[in-house]
């Protein structure tokens, strides 16, 4: 029963991590750039929810569309300011510019909100349901449901719509996508917007149970990085599965030992994967045939 309880908690945490990793891997695929600001975008989404909540006296779920739209706009600003002007420079330029954006977001948040932890409202309610002997917080169920819906909707867009095909083509071969008539720059902007919206949604989902501070993004970008490495660099399904796995690992080891031990073990696992299986556990078997 204890294991099942941990599973429920791990899946809820993993669902939110999956959104963070998903946004990270989408931008990575579309631009080959590692967006080091992704964790700080999660923090920004959480604090945005905290700021907007008093203006909308409704359950937290009503904040979701507001957070998605405003964070997508922030993603556009990020792309216009920190990616597009540097896209033809060496990759390290974009690494540094996204790190700079992250620091600006952290300091901006510290000025506006102060350093103390804050909590966003629960999505539906903060009661605990008792299901077959398990204590399941409503917020955990809501996190899984909302993250699942968002990830499912995104998968549908990518698989079934012309916008999704264009986004995937841009990610796989931007030059050839242009030669197929795809407006690649617009697709990159859309990708940054989706990536930031995912981060914002994760921020809203996490900021109730786990609180949010201006520096909480640093931990999350590492989690996203680990999830993408575990899942296979560039693999979208791998990023989601990787996020679930690291959350289950974190919750499981924390319950038996402690959170610091869980984090240490997580980084050791990352190191082992990088050395022994650099393509990740679910590295995509995509290759060209002659």
């Amino acid at each position, binding site marked *: 029963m204890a294991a099942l309880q941990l599973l429920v908690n791990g899946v809820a945490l993993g669902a939110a991590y999956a959104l963070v990793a998903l946004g990270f891997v989408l931008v990575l695929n579309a631009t080959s750039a590692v967006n080091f600001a992704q964790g700080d975008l999660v923090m920004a989404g959480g604090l945005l929810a905290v700021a907007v909540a008093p203006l909308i006296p409704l359950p937290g779920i009503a904040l979701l569309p507001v957070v998605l739209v405003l964070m997508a706009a922030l993603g556009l600003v990020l792309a216009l300011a920190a990616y597009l002007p540097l896209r033809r420079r060496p990759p390290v330029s974009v690494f540094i510019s996204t790190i700079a954006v992250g620091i600006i977001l952290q300091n901006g948040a510290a000025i506006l909100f102060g350093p103390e932890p804050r909590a966003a409202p629960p999505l539906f309610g903060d009661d605990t349901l008792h299901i077959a002997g398990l204590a399941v917080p409503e917020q955990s169920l809501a996190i899984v449901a909302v993250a699942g819906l968002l990830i499912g909707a995104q998968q549908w867009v990518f698989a079934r719509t012309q916008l999704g*095909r264009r986004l*995937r083509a841009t990610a796989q*071969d931007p030059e*050839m996508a*242009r*030669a*197929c008539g*795809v407006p690649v720059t617009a697709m990159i902007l859309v990708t940054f917007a989706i990536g930031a919206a995912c981060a914002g949604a994760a921020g809203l989902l996490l900021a109730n149970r786990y609180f949010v501070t201006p520096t909480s993004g640093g931990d999350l970008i590492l989690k996203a990085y680990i999830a993408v490495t575990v899942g296979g660099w560039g693999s979208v399904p791998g990023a989601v599965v990787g996020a679930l796995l690291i959350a289950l690992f974190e919750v499981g080891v924390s319950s038996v030992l402690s959170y610091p031990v869980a984090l240490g073990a997580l980084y050791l696992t990352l190191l082992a994967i990088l050395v022994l299986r650099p393509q990740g556990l679910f590295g995509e078997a995509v290759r060209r*045939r002659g």
Partner: protein
Amino acid sequence: MSALLSIRGLSAGYGGADALDDVSLDLAAGETVALLGANGAGKSTLLKALIGLVPARGELRLDGADLGGLATEARVRRGIGYVPEGRRVFPGMSVRDNLEVAGRSAARDRAQDVERVFALFPDLAFKSRESAWRLSGGQQQMLSLGRALMGRPRLLLLDEPSLGLSPKLADELFAAVRNIAETGTAVLLAEQSAARALTVAPRAVLLRLGRVVGDGLAAAVSEQALHAAFFGG
């Protein structure tokens, strides 16, 4: 026939070095022209300059409209289709998605165009749900060609389509190119295999070291001119 494509004084290259030097060329609507020359003659660079993938100087017009300064995707919308050397299909996407991504915005138009491509290349129809990387080299080449047709081009640029294909597959592919040309699409075909290219193109342009060194009816292209284009002298 009026000129569909007009090129005047075109120079283009990579990193400051010109691979094309002062190329001028006209192509009529519906005409098929073989672009012949050795490796490094500038054939691929010319096609990339036309589609906008390498920066170029000079005058480029399609149906009288200036293409200079237009981005690649805008040139595609104006009616240029491009089949690159090495196929470059989107490997992680299905055959159908590879086609649809290059298609029109309206789903019904796209579906009709996909069916037209499947009619031209029935092998692709059987593999429509397969990831493109699983296809054989010949099938990938068909997919690359079909993808270019999805934009309903008036001018099709083909870069070394027979490269790496068996003679039988290359013949099948050239038969398809002949069918496409017969529908009225102009074709500019860069090819190292002169003999094969001249089976579909009534006219040949010879390139050597980035310059046009011959332009005339395929039947009139002499062995001597071909030898000069490929080997100098």
